[in-house]
């Protein structure tokens, strides 16, 4: 058990190191950092001076160690386009992205479970078939098309919801939140739906399949025989057992939600990390791209690690198989 966790932690560090090498190579070799700092008519001697002051004439392994050391302490260099430390820019944008990801996940879980339970219980009803169609569309339509469709319906035609930005935000310490103001909440609705739709269809399909399977088992028959109400059986007994795969999916998809917020944030001009990243790609701002890559890698690795460890804690059956890796 302990050996398994230690091995997983070493694997996670390995992945992070590999991503770090990629990020460093981008930072160091894709375009000359000196050119981004000095102007075109700077004399060669002065360029050399800048090069030396940045430590770019040191051996590459030393530079890599320095970059990684800085990254561990939250120093990712200076953005080419904003002339500000990348870590400040990311910290400023992070609350917007995390709030969006959180609301999208809540939306996906609540509606995914409701629709999944309904279509699992009443498989042949018209509404269940409608849900199935919606889920097919949710999986095949590109995210940005869904966003545009929502904007056209609710912002342009009906004028109910704002089409871009976060609305008014309140600062709590360094964290700026849109959850405490009315316009902030309104602004969250459409981006959350756009970002969460894919996860919602995923959860709906899983809950539906699990419900149909669980309702056939003996303990549900026994609960019926005991004379429990239908509601107690469906929600107290059946639903509870469908939730384990849902928790897994929500956990594993959290990283994807943050990565896919790149698209949603662009559609809704949401001032988060994803929009910052897209602007960095458009303007070839390598320090931001490298830092975003490392940050997302860290989030992914931490989530995967947490899910793996939680699994062994929650499900005793897994422990015996882990002891003898196949």
């Amino acid at each position, binding site marked *: 058990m302990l050996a398994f966790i230690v091995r997983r932690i070493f694997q996670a560090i390995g*992945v992070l190191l*590999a*991503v770090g090498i990629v990020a460093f190579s*981008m930072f160091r070799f*894709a*375009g000359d950092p000196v050119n981004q700092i000095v102007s075109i008519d700077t004399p060669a001697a002065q360029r050399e001076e800048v090069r030396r002051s940045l430590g770019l004439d040191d051996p590459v392994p030393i530079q890599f160690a320095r970059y990684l050391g800085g990254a561990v302490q939250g120093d990712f260099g200076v953005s080419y386009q904003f002339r500000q430390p990348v870590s400040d820019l990311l910290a400023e944008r992070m609350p917007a992205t995390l709030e969006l990801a959180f609301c999208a996940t809540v939306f996906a879980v609540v509606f995914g479970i409701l629709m999944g339970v309904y279509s699992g219980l009443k498989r042949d009803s018209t509404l269940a078939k409608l849900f199935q169609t919606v889920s097919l*569309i949710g*999986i*095949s*339509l*590109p*995210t*940005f*098309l869904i966003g*545009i*469709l929502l*904007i*056209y319906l609710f912002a*342009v035609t009906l004028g109910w919801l704002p*089409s871009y930005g976060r609305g008014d935000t309140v600062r709590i310490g360094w964290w700026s939140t849109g959850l405490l103001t009315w316009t902030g909440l309104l602004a969250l609705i459409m981006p959350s739906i756009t970002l969460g739709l894919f996860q919602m269809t995923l959860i709906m399909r899983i809950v539906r399949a699990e419900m149909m399977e669980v309702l056939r088992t003996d303990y549900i028959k026994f609960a019926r025989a005991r004379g429990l109400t239908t509601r107690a059986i469906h929600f107290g007994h059946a639903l509870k057992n469908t939730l384990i795969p849902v928790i897994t999916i929500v956990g594993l998809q959290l990283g*994807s939600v943050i*990565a*896919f917020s*790149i*698209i949603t944030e*662009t*559609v809704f001009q949401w001032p988060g990390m994803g929009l910052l*990243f*897209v602007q*960095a*790609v*458009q303007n*070839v701002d*390598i320090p931001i*791209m490298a830092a975003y*890559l490392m940050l*997302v*890698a860290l989030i*992914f*690795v931490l989530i*995967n690690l947490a899910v793996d460890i939680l699994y062994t804690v929650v499900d005793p059956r897994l422990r015996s198989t882990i002891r003898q890796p196949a």
Partner: protein
Amino acid sequence: MTISTQAPSAVQSLPTSRIGRLLDSDIWASFRRSKLTMTAAALTLIFLLAAIFAGILSPQNPFNPAELDLLNSRLPPIWEAEGQAPFLLGTDEQGRDILSAILYGLRISLLVGFLGVAFSATLGISLGLIAGYFGGLADTLIMRVADVQLTFPAILIALLIDGVVKSVLGGNLDATTILSVLVFSIGLSFWVQYARTVRGSVLVEKNKDYVAAARLIGLPAPAILIKHILPNVTGPVLVIATINLALAVITEATLSFLGTGMPETMPSLGTLIRIGNNYLFSGEWWIVAFPGIALAALVLAINLLGDWLRDALNPKLR
């Protein structure tokens, strides 16, 4: 494939021509059974033909400035009061016919999609063959890289590669170079699935007698891999390729929509949607709506075909 080169006498009872054999197969029967699949196939075929014959079908060449007239700008579709022939689906800001732009954009989208799939499949199959057949260090190295890459969503990797390649090439790139960069970044973000699948099949195939026989008569490893093992692992690869075609089209459209893909001088469907998105608020809904519908229908049709192919090629589901 190599089947048709075999002597027909060995399979006397079966139809001998390739088409005859196809019509007799289970796959064709399952195709005929599903109306949805037939519709999806017809739709895909229409899209393909429309993309190939875009030059003949379009009322105007949307990339020839001489054919554009600013007097025709922002015309609504023909069924609205202000619509004008021959602009069936209306025009955009520059007087460009939307239908023509969609047909030409479809061509770019499908071209990037097909080339991206071809590139990622070639890369993935080659690496999978090498990893599975030779094992050892090559196997460890390739599969480790695959594992790390699989941790990230493909769209993120495509965006990164796109950004890095552009910064290495630098400066103003022409449309053809950007198209190659897109194919390159899509190819590099989708190879993992092919490599893993092919490696798994090769691990099974390489212990079979026909491979041992090929080795005994002294064939070199590349010949054994390409002529003997590869034909036996193509089934699953075909399914992945179909589903990945839809994914590649979506990825290209997304990159173009984000402003890091095809430029406005040579727009794909994604670029058209990005352009149209700017006119959503001034009421010109048709500039974004029709390219959007075209993209959605294309992706849905290819996805349905991929689903069917997966079920049809899986003997357990028959």
